[in-house]
């Protein structure tokens, strides 16, 4: 090979690098391990991390993932393919994504979906940027304190550099949902969008109809921040509220066409984290962000979008479309800088949703809800423990404890239980408050074990 190139040795191929810049050996790195050695290393690491019985939710949810999901997803043909730039050689991936878009649009009740963003929190930031682009006159976003603090801080990191202001809306201490009176004070003010979490960070269910109507009545967009699994049970974002949007939506074409199921109500953008749809907890990722919106906003949407079309012979096929929104075409004027997304997680989610189907997803959501209800009921039977808020919840709830949650959690951890998420740092005003979650994975015995451990921990 060297002869064909016309050099005597491999080193010659690096002769354009200034000699004094060349590095020596990578001293901090050891010798390479063979697979057997690295397997042992990783197994030893994993063995240290035996999972405890988990009651933490707070944005990442433990659900049963059918075995077929990852057995299929890690097939080399999905796993080791690139972004489907060459459509003819990527019909597998492209069709999966088109199916995914269909499922997500339907779950959220929106017209269209993109093919994923990084995660829910960064997806929320993208939704804010999109809302600002669409709204045109305001750079303020109203963000309830019931939105996950992790999401708020991430969104802040991302949007602040474009001079977007996030205005916090307080919550009602009785219900654990948005304080409507406090929100009302922003009526008439200039804002691009209101973020509406459902369920919210406390697991409480917001009055999404009222919030959506309020946003629209006051000239802003409604950004729904939803748990996709909950949507098997809960009203879809596209059907929230009943107030027609005050002005024709910006964003170009489509607004006057009679769209299929064109909505004059409902959230304008729906985002969230797709993790509950087949992504293992994995210490935090990879998950994926999903984003759906109304047809009129599609050209404002960031991320990849797959369209169905026909080939030379008129045969159905799938391809990346509306690429002119993206950085590799539009560069500095793109809707976002996103390029790689979380494709494989979306493949997993598509297979997950296909395996569960409408009925299965609904049953999982309902069982999760019921378990959380039961947990709250059992826990509040303990003297000194009560449920913090009175709004209806979905699969997660806040408990008031007679002791600092951190202490209680440390105690419970010693008996093999992850008791929940300590709210004291994010919501100091709540005192000793613990966010607990129980999904369909928990048995009655598990719940009893939780309650016994909690009781012991506060004794």
């Amino acid at each position, binding site marked *: 090979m060297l002869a064909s190139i016309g050099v005597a040795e491999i080193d010659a191929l690096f002769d354009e690098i200034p000699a004094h810049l060349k590095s020596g050996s990578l001293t901090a790195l050891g010798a390479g391990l063979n697979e057997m050695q690295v397997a042992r290393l990783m197994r030893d690491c994993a063995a240290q991390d035996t999972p405890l019985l988990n009651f933490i939710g707070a944005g990442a949810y433990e659900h049963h993932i059918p075995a077929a999901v990852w057995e299929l997803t890690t097939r080399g043909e999905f796993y080791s393919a690139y972004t489907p730039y060459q459509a003819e050689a990527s019909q597998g991936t492209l069709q999966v994504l088109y199916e995914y*878009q269909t499922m997500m649009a339907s779950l959220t009740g929106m017209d269209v979906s993109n093919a994923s963003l990084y995660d829910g929190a960064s997806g929320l930031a993208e939704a804010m940027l999109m809302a600002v682009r669409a709204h045109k006159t305001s750079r303020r976003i109203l963000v309830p304190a019931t939105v996950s603090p992790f999401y708020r801080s991430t969104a802040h990191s991302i949007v602040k550099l474009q001079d977007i202001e996030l205005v916090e809306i307080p919550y009602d201490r009785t219900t654990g949902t948005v304080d409507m009176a406090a929100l009302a004070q922003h009526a008439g003010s200039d804002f691009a969008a209101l973020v509406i979490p459902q369920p919210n960070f406390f697991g409480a269910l917001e009055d999404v109809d009222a919030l959506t109507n309020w946003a629209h009545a006051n000239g802003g967009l409604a950004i729904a921040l939803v748990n996709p699994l909950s949507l*098997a049970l809960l009203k879809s974002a596209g059907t929230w509220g009943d107030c027609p949007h005050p002005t024709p939506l910006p964003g170009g074409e489509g607004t006057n066409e009679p769209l*299929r199921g064109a909505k004059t109500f409902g959230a304008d953008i729906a985002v969230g984290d797709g993790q509950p749809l087949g992504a293992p907890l994995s210490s935090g990722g990879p998950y994926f962000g999903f984003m759906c919106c109304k047809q009129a906003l599609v050209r404002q949407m960031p991320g990849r979008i797959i369209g169905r079309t026909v080939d030379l012979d008129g045969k159905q096929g799938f391809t990346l479309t509306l690429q002119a929104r993206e950085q590799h075409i539009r560069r500095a004027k793109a809707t976002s800088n*996103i390029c790689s997304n979380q494709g494989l997680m979306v493949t997993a989610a598509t297979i997950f949703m296909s395996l569960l189907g409408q009925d299965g997803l609904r049953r999982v959501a309902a069982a999760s809800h019921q378990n959380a209800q039961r947990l709250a009921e059992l826990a509040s039977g303990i003297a000194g423990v009560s449920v913090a808020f009175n709004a209806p919840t979905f699969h997660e709830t806040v408990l008031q404890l007679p002791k600092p949650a951190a202490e209680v959690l440390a105690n419970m951890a010693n008996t093999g239980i992850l008791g929940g998420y300590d709210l004291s740092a994010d919501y100091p005003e709540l005192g000793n408050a613990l966010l607990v979650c129980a999904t369909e994975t928990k048995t009655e015995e598990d719940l009893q074990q939780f309650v016994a451990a909690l009781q012991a921990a506060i004794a």
Partner: protein
Amino acid sequence: MLIFERSHPSRRNAAQAPHAMADVKSIPAALLRQDAPLLPEASEMDVVRHYTNLSQKNFSIDTHFYPLGSCTMKYNPRACNTLAMLPNFLARHPLAPAHTGQGVLACLYDLQEILKEVTGMAGVSLMPMAGAQGEFAGIAMIQAYHASRGDTARTEIIVPDAAHGTNPATAVMCGYKVREIPTNADGDVDLDALRAAVGPQTAGLMLTNPSTLGVFETHIEDIKHIIHNAGGLLYYDGANLNAILGKVKPGDMGFDVIHSNLHKTFATPHGGGGPGAGAVGVAARLLPFLPLPVVAKSPSSVALPSPTGRGVGGEGAGTESTAEYRYLTEADLPLSIGHLSAFTGNIGVLLRAYIYAKMLGADGMHRVAEFATLNANYLMAELQKVGYRIAFPQRRASHEFIVSCKPLKDATGISAMDVAKRLLDKGYHPPTTYFPMLVPECLLIEPTETESKETLDAFVAAMKEIWDEAHATPDLVKGAPYTMPVRRLDDVKAARELDLTWKVAQA
């Protein structure tokens, strides 16, 4: 056929849900969904068959040579996947206390150290979830750095015209204006133009080296001086480090900040679009701004305040941490640009990269660079012999190189796209087409280090066949592909008559 078309009303996959439907009465009816979402109603077998058959419609590294330039489609050892998916790694909740995750945290810490060594930077955060987010983190740090010094007049980021589209887009997302500078005939940055472009408004320069033209920027030190002298910082788009691993370190070239696509150089697979990981490395002056969280080891050189109990990474106060590894939080790095994800980035991807890096070791890193470079230069030489026009024949190829089909098109009417589509029929994934935009009719070819000479020779033979076909039977080439699940698709129709979701009525 779509999965929805395999669906049959009220068919249930009983194995995948609770057998009994739970009670949801405690949720007010007004909050409940009335319509059923459009999800398939199919058996597990139908689903498995559908997606197994779909998967077979893809080209992938595990099935085909895939010399897609700038994408580093190299082979990902299967152990990386298997070991990253060990049940305990998958089961851990992101908010579980650090003492329940010492195994995974140790891996992440070690990966940070490896990347520091490889890039020659002072600190690394693994958090960005892809290259573009790594760029965002990098430029945000540059912004934070200038801001922390009260240097607020710097409103521009300079980007060479050959840059990847994410670079200008990122600069804009960080609130900057983009100033583009041209490339000279050798594929290097035009230094005069650069000198003319810098000024007190310059926040920094984003550079890819080796560039997306497949050549090593020889005047890197001049560039560094120009930018640094103007008070700007130097950003390194290290999406692809394959060609320089162990050969030259971005830190030594004078870069202040770098992102690296672990899903390229560190072989975590691309998964049909992601997930990736865009770790960022910084020089000492940018350390305080690293995105959160960063993994620390105690005792550590970084002074660690006591854990805060706040959110991601905090060991719950009360469990006074005796853990060796923990996440640094806002309390540790108050000047950080903050979090870029709800939790901790794409941990699973990072584990794959870590396993890969451990398997390579120091020697392996060198080998990657050498074989990636050798393969690219060999392929370049061989394609030139066939007759293809090399964009920068006077230069060494790095891990990739560019063929321009302009002469071929002028002679035969066959475009780069035609060549690409015809390659599909020959069983090869085409190179990247029409990027970088400044070379007309270009094919950006990156064979990677994991391909054998036999495969490269077979690819050259296929390119030779196409060359001959282009001259003898150009219509044959223009009609390609013929052997794929679909022939060329109507992209215009796709964009004009948007069909983004399947609707029942079409059934």
